[in-house]
């Protein structure tokens, strides 16, 4: 259910995102999911990569002067059909939990679109997901993609 995410701080300047992707490309890192939070001042890039690349990616990012950090996020499968995302959000709403952010993978698994969820209170939602048979994915599942 929890998978590792890497967050990278980016200055709001032309070329900084490319600088980061170039570094990851040179080190053979496959970006499985990506989202960018942009403000007028700065951006935060969030990445999902395979577990065996994480330490190496963090090391190279830090050496190149990027601020990068690892944290846990929830990974759920959302069926590729109308109303599926809405169903998930209804559950989170029922739990009265706020969503910090949500973004999807570049992969489809078992007819599901994979989504990354960052919630204020994950535990509560996980229980509800289980009751509602919402498929959640582990780091091992992701590594196999």
């Amino acid at each position: 259910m929890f998978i590792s995410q890497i967050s990278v701080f980016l200055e709001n300047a032309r070329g900084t995102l490319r600088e980061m992707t170039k570094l990851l490309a040179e080190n053979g890192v496959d970006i499985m999911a990506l989202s960018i939070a942009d403000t007028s001042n700065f951006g935060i890039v969030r990445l999902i990569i395979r577990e065996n690349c994480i330490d190496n990616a963090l090391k190279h990012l830090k050496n190149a002067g990027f601020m990068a950090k690892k944290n846990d996020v929830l990974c759920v499968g959302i069926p590729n059909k109308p109303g599926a995302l809405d169903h998930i959000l209804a559950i989170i709403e029922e739990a009265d939990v706020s969503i910090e952010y949500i973004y999807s993978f570049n992969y489809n698994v078992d007819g599901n679109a994979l989504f990354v969820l960052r919630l204020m209170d994950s535990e509560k939602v996980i229980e509800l997901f289980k009751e509602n048979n919402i498929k959640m994915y582990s780091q091992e599942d992701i590594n196999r993609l």
Partner: protein
Amino acid sequence: MNSALKEHKIYDPQMECMNRDELRELQSKRLRETVKLEYENVPLYRSRMDAKGVKPEDIRTVDDLRLLPFSEKTDLRDEFPFGLFAAPKSQIVRIQGSSGTTGKPIVAGYTQSDVEIWTEMVARAITAAGGGKDDIIQVSYGYGLFTGGLGAHQGATKVGAMVLPMSSGNTQRQILMMKELGVTMLCCTPSYATFLGETIREMGIKPEELKLKSGCFGAEPWSEEMRAHLEELLGIDACDIYGLTEIAGPGVAFECLEKKGMHVNEDHVIVEIIDPVTGEPLPYGESGELVFSTITKTGMPMLRYRTHDICKLDASPCKCGRTHVRMERITGRTDDMLVISGVNVFPSQIESVLVGLNGVSPHYMLVVDRVKSRDKLEVQVELTEEMFSDTVAEIEKLRDDIKEKIKSVVGINTKIQLVPPKSIPRSEGKAKRIIDKRNI
């Protein structure tokens, strides 16, 4: 010997602990000699005294100092190189120059006796910071025309310590030597000491693995918060040292381990605080511009030299036993002072806010610009691991906290720009903290 004197080592107790009445008499005598020397040998100063209608015999005591004209840094530029020397060139044994990076150079000439006086001032400073013949002292100020390196070197040699003349730069090697030789004292700028401390941490070396116990840090203004940070980082007592090439070099004033202001070597210089606008002397305790008169120098004596440094003087007795007046931290410079939308802003105020916030880096840059005739101050702050989060809300909250704190201390609105770690240039000499883009 009383207990206070026991814990505080004093290089020259006779001079440094002299009764203030006797000190005043000594100062008056030495001032008379210096005024005579200056009047007879330095045409610029003689013409200034003549223009004010002051003769050397009008100056009898320290109280008459206010009759004398001021001298300025521009005098050293205008009279470059030898115009202000009071001794013949054959008696000058040393030239030192300004560490400034802008404008024309300035140089100061020292006679043999001047070098000895300066050396003794630094020896007093090192002793006051706990240094002596059993210490290994690493000098990481730049060696050369800049007085930092040679000044600390001479003083450390004078107290009989084992001196390691590293000069500035090559940080990895500095740390290697510090560790391998078991260096006990460090002399460099506070910003370089911080950089050394951070690099030591990054290299995985713990402060306990080093033998460092104290340091004399100067050549740039720093804050009480930066001291706390530095002391924690290196596990040392960090003492402030003050000086300027025009007066001697580092050691004009120095802190003892009480760390309650820097003792001015008053048997060699007379210190005043003046109102920077009117030039009128201010009483002890009031904040104003520091003015020094040398009273023992013979190569290039300076009378009423305006430093443009802003601070206060404190004549209350110090627990260390020294009687010499203490100058508080330099809170700014009359020429470093930023006037932003009519508000006086000193970089040190911003620094104290940043260092006081948990997880915030002490490395910053102030960028001033004028947009549509309005002044804007941007504070660039380096992001640290503790500050960074994967959510925008947390980072923005921290940014707003910094902005609020600065507003409450300085009184103006700033734009806080978070920048990646290590992106603000580290300096091995004086840190550059201001970029002023305004075309006024």
